[in-house]
């Protein structure tokens, strides 16, 4: 309680999360390597990165369930090592893997979870009904959890994480494995929370999710943060405005050595296609044809975070 741990919570301008040189080791293996970041109140902040980047490990440290190996971490102004219960009392956590209580009904899952926070029973029941309404599960209130669809389980987990009216939500891959419809419903609920001013921290390896939900994000790769900024700023900084994607018939791509040189600011060769980065994608595709090359398909699109990631790491996000 000496230095900045005792500062008033929610003090003006103080970040809700403050990490400097934050490191996690499992034996000799480094899962999170000296990362720095801050999350401000009301912000929606993302960790974008491929599997194994260290996103979950970072989230677990923030959530006070994984001891920090090295570095400084303050959550809500407090040190998780000494104030774990106080911090967790004000967090809403959606873990990567659903950990719903399959021995309880949908509604009981919320009520009992509220009891773990020490809320009075009646209050738990009131909030449970409200939250079931919010995540559109009221009709399933008295059902068992197991038969619910993946999307419903995810929504229930989100409802559960809201039972203590958290100041800060930690969502670890909230929509991974869900079908598009279920994802959009979830995004919509998260968007409403964001509108209400809830601070969201989420991890994802979907760039569209990051673009939809995050005001600001860090790109993680191999335990390190490789870039930081708003989705738009990251794209502007690390990519061109447009991308021309060329797909050639099988066997042709390998014979193109040098034939595309000079057509774009940057060229990325993927196993199944070639990406040409330039601000005017149409002009690039015209130039390709002028050189006598005949790709099977040509597609011009805007740059995305996927391109940023490719630029920074030389790999695609989802292999």
């Amino acid at each position, binding site marked *: 309680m000496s230095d900045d741990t005792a500062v008033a919570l929610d003090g003006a301008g103080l970040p809700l999360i403050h990490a400097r040189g934050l490191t996690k080791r499992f034996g000799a293996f480094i899962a999170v390597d000296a990362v720095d970041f801050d999350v401000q109140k009301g912000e929606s902040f993302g960790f974008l990165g491929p599997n194994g980047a260290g996103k979950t490990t970072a989230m677990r440290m923030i959530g006070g369930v994984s001891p920090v190996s090295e570095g400084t971490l303050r959550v809500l102004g407090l040190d998780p090592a000494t104030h774990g219960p106080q911090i967790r009392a004000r967090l809403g956590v959606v873990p990567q893997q659903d950990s719903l209580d399959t021995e309880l009904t949908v509604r009981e899952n919320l009520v009992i979870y509220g009891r*773990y926070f020490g809320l009075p029973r009646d209050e738990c029941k009131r909030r449970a009904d409200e939250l079931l309404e919010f995540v559109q599960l009221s009709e399933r209130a008295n059902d068992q959890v197991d038969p619910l669809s993946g999307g419903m389980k995810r929504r229930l987990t989100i409802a559960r994480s809201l039972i203590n009216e958290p100041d800060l939500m930690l969502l670890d891959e909230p929509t991974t494995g869900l079908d598009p419809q279920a994802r959009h419903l979830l995004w919509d609920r998260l968007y409403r929370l964001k509108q209400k001013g809830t601070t969201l921290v989420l991890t994802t390896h979907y760039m569209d999710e990051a673009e939809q939900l995050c005001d600001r994000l860090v790109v993680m790769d191999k335990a390190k943060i490789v870039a930081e900024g708003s989705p738009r700023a990251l794209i502007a900084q690390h990519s061109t405005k447009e991308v021309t994607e060329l797909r050639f018939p099988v066997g042709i791509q390998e014979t193109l050595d040098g034939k595309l040189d000079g057509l774009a600011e940057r060229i990325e060769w993927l196993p199944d296609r070639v990406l040409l980065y330039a601000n005017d994608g149409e002009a690039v595709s015209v130039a390709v044809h002028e050189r006598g090359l005949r790709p099977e398909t040509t597609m011009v699109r805007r740059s995305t975070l996927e391109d940023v990631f490719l630029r920074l790491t030389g790999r695609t996000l989802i292999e």
Partner: protein
Amino acid sequence: MSGLPAAVLGRVAPQLAFGSRRAGRLIERNIYVYRRSWIIIFSGFFEPIFYLLGIGIGLGRLVGDVAGPGGAPISYTLFVAPALLASAAMNGAILEATFNFFFKLRWQKTFDAILSTPMAVADVAIGELGWALIRGGLYAIAFTIVIVPFGLVTTPLALLAIPAALLIGFAFGALAMAATTFMRTWQDFDLIQMIILPLFLFSGTFFPLETYPEPLRILVQLTPLYHGVDLIRSLIVGVLSPVLLVHVAYLTVMGLIGLVVVSRRLDKLLRT
């Protein structure tokens, strides 16, 4: 022997005192679960009664009287009934502390979810053990009531058999939970079954200790259920002696050690 219990107590007592309210919420969760499946609880209640009718009363006709605590002869039924109570307390706690605990720990990730709340690892350990004790305590009370009409309860001391049964549940429940934290698959539990069965048969349960050869007798006296059986038998028969304090100390230390191991292991497994 006095240093270890003191150290263990120093570590656990504050958690018992301060963690108890939060641990109670886990007990509440388990009550919610069993509200729907109270029939499961019932089965553990009938088992010792069947043994009492089958072995105690059936076999008792053939065997006649045996030497009870303090040496005075008692009916075989009176000899067996307290041992069945002690075994039931052990079994009830172990059932809860092995299969159910393992399911929540490894499969359902119940405790991972709980540790994302203000609940601490010690709350989980104490809450789960507390629930095992409540379940064991219900069996003990029911069994004690059932043996009254058989004329087996003749002294008010017999009432102390119920807290004694809770102590047995505490000792075995804590140790079994500690063992469960090391289990990797459901098959590993066969090992526990292999330990429980000989304990159940040879802890002075069905025949007096004096019938064993000397080396075996000493071995039995070192095992935990023997202490539980002798404690409860002495209380129900109504014979007090200083040896009972040894029984109580043995079981208390065993439970506290189990509880400390459980807390440490849960911390290691869940807070990585």
